[in-house]
């Protein structure tokens, strides 16, 4: 009797399919760059496409969360395919630098970028900066009363304050800046006050905070500056205004954070990767990269969008961006100590 070996047959087919699929995903061509991108495609693609048009170098974006991609980069080590790492947050860049995942970029290439917005060893460079600001409802009772982020702990804002949950990267980076500027004790009290004010209700999106402030459900919120303008694009008459905090004489100034890029240590295309970095910090690249999201270009002499307060019109907290990585764990400890939601 003829035996049909069905199970072995099935196994054979399965292993065949598996083997095929294991290797079928073509490895990218030699003349293209791979970026692990922790920034929204929408903000990265225009400038990258411009780069490809000008140089003919193809770029593959592998998009995800900055932290997850940094984890991946670290575990992959020498086997990574990534040539560059684009992060939304200076903290991640410095962390990767501390782990030795990046290679130093030639110093004269980075000269046009202010020293405060790149790594000390030039292992990463900031491309665009965002400001941590207050959004206030202009019709509400708090309209003209808030001048400092520390005012957000004022009990008058009970139930009227919007902040993100404490896993948000921009939020953590902001707290790091305040912690370094005014010390742990004051920051701790401030967090405690905010915790009492929000009473467990925090937001997972900055845009929702702005929306709630615009609707008058909240009086004030702590957000990145561009969310305010994004809302105003859709609702030009919304009763909200931006407040640049801590501008008093003895105030610490506004907290900044940068999105930036690094070249991976194990790339085999360092020269190509430097070309991309050079393009991103060129005047055209800077204009485009910062403009799509109305952020501040980090290159000296390139102006930000006219919609937002000019960079030289207010004081920025004097904390180097690299500190956002070095002090991140201390900040998280502080946040957990208070038990911020």
């Amino acid at each position, binding site marked *: *009797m003829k*035996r*049909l*070996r*069905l*199970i072995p047959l*099935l*196994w054979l087919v*399965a292993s065949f*399919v*598996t083997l095929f*699929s*294991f*290797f*079928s*995903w073509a*490895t*990218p061509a030699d003349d293209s760059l*791979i970026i692990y991108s922790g920034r*929204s*495609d*929408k903000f990265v693609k225009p400038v990258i496409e411009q780069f490809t048009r000008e140089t003919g170098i193809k770029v*593959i*974006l*592998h*998009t*995800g*969360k900055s*932290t*997850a991609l*940094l*984890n*991946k980069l*670290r*575990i*992959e*080590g020498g*086997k990574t*395919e*990534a040539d560059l790492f684009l992060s939304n947050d200076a903290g991640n860049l410095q*962390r990767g630098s501390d782990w030795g995942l990046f290679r130093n970029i030639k110093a004269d290439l980075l000269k046009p970028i202010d020293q405060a917005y790149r790594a000390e060893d030039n292992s990463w460079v900031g491309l665009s900066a965002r400001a941590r600001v207050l959004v206030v409802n202009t019709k509400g009772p708090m309209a003209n009363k808030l001048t400092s982020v520390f005012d957000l702990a004022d009990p008058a804002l009970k139930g009227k304050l919007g902040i993100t*949950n404490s*896993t948000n990267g921009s939020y*953590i980076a902001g707290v790091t800046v305040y912690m370094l500027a005014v010390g742990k004790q004051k920051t701790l009290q401030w967090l405690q006050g905010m915790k009492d004010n929000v009473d467990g*209700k*925090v937001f*997972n*999106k900055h*845009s*929702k905070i702005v*929306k709630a402030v615009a*609707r008058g*459900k909240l009086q004030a919120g702590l957000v990145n500056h561009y969310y305010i303008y994004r809302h105003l694009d859709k609702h030009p008459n919304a009763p909200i205004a931006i407040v640049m905090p801590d501008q008093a004489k003895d105030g610490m100034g506004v907290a900044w954070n940068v999105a930036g890029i690094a070249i991976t240590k194990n790339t085999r295309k360092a020269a190509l990767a430097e070309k991309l970095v050079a393009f991103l910090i060129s005047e055209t690249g800077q204009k485009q990269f910062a403009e799509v999201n109305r952020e501040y270009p980090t290159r000296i002499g390139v102006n930000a969008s006219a919609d937002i307060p000019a960079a030289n019109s207010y004081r920025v907290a004097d904390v180097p961006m690299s500190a956002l990585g070095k002090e991140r*764990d201390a900040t*998280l400890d502080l946040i*957990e100590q208070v038990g911020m*939601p």
Partner: protein
Amino acid sequence: MAAFFPTSFSRSISGSGRRFISLGGLAAAVVLLAAMPLLYVVYSSLQLSVDQWFQLWSSRLPELLWNTLSLAVLVAIGCVCLGVSSAWWIARREFPGRRLATWLMILPLTVPTYVFAHIYTTLLEEDGWLGQLWITLFGNDNSPPDLYNIWGVTLILSLAGFSYVFLLARTALSQPIRSLEEAAQIQGASAFEVFWRINLPLLRPAIAAGLAVVVLHVLSDFGAVSMLQYQTFTLAIFQQMEGRYDHQAAAGLSLILVMLSLTFLVLERFFRSRQRYHSARHSRHMLVRKATRVETCLIWFWLGLITLFAFGLPLAWMLSWSWQAWSQDLINAQFWGYAGNSLMVAVIAASIAVVVAFPVAFYNARKRTAGSQALLQFSSVGFVLPGPVIALGILSFLLAQLPFLYGGLGALLIAVVIRFLPLAVQSQDAAMAQLTPSLEQAGRSLGAGPFENLRRVILPMIRGGMATAWVLVFIDTLKELPATLILRPTGFDTLPVRIWIEASEEMLELAAPAALMLVIGTLPVLWIMMHGHTAKTDQQ
């Protein structure tokens, strides 16, 4: 009968029992592969010092345990209420649109939890559909309810998961033991008493099995809890890894989650093991009464209500935003590429999972020893580990041991197969429960060899189970997010990945078509599963 199996299976090959051992070996190999991420977790957590354990224990564990367990209980209750009630009406009453109703009850399976969470938070905003309705009804002073709490997560996970309970309860209710019900009625039991004292106990195994799937989904859910920021083990593990890059603490938390889940699985097994005793013999009477007009109205009111929230609203939302995307020309070749990628991964992963699950289930079906049971349970490890942890385990393992596999689809496929292997194993195991030695004996006595027996007797009998296994793995893979995020090949985006990226940037127009494609992509396989099921019941 234990003695019968090995010899019958092996004799015709070599007469030495080698065949049977190799089946066991195969099963063990599969389980070992599935346990790989667990080994990684154990290894990493061993590097935690006593102090660190103590700190984990005192700082996070009580809260996480309470949050996770109470969520599991609430979702279980929610799923039983929705699933059993709908299954009862559909299995026991003949009413217009009954087939459609069955479909409506399983369609929510096509919507991933993170899409549910995203849609409902959007709808409940003050300018969302439900938010506006709320304000119209209750005035401007009352904010619409907020989903960022245990009740919100319970709602989302119940809507997303009750279909599992429905499917299993419906199957069980379609095979009633009428004599018992009649006996109870003759004794003067009311309809409610019959349900409470006859049907519910008989349903218990099916409910337990359905709940097992639901609870495991809850324990491993990443999408909804991360969208709604509700601190469960999975979210805490993820935050340890992402926020602090602390893989050891993440592994420690994972280990506790695994123990929690295994405890639960053992409990569930205990309940289910009594199933065979209860429903081993049942009559072939089907008790389907024609619904009265009032009943029909009630049935459709209830089913309609469930459908509205579990599928209608999400679908309407997806359609409305997809339409906007369409009119803005945002659906281009790239989008179809994502859809193709998703489909490819899901088809391959489901096929592999069904094949590799077979030895584990089959080995257990023949042996039914503590050892084979243990293997079966251990294959469930994938389901109880959070996706990100599995992904990291596999990433580390592959890079250290099999670096040539890295970079292609291989890593991703291994991860999703491990994650969803339990679905395949459990479905096949359930299907094999009806295999009795006498059947095989009959085949053997008619001169069929082991493979012919397998092909002509066993496989046809468990075909339904295998189809279900394939479909369940397919659906879950299509929706898979956390492992895909970490392990996909460079530049390889699937629909869930796109939904996640776009939703986190609040580009609703781009998230909606991808979510809609997931629903559409799942429809044909659901049809296969339902069709297989009706064919099977018709035969009976």
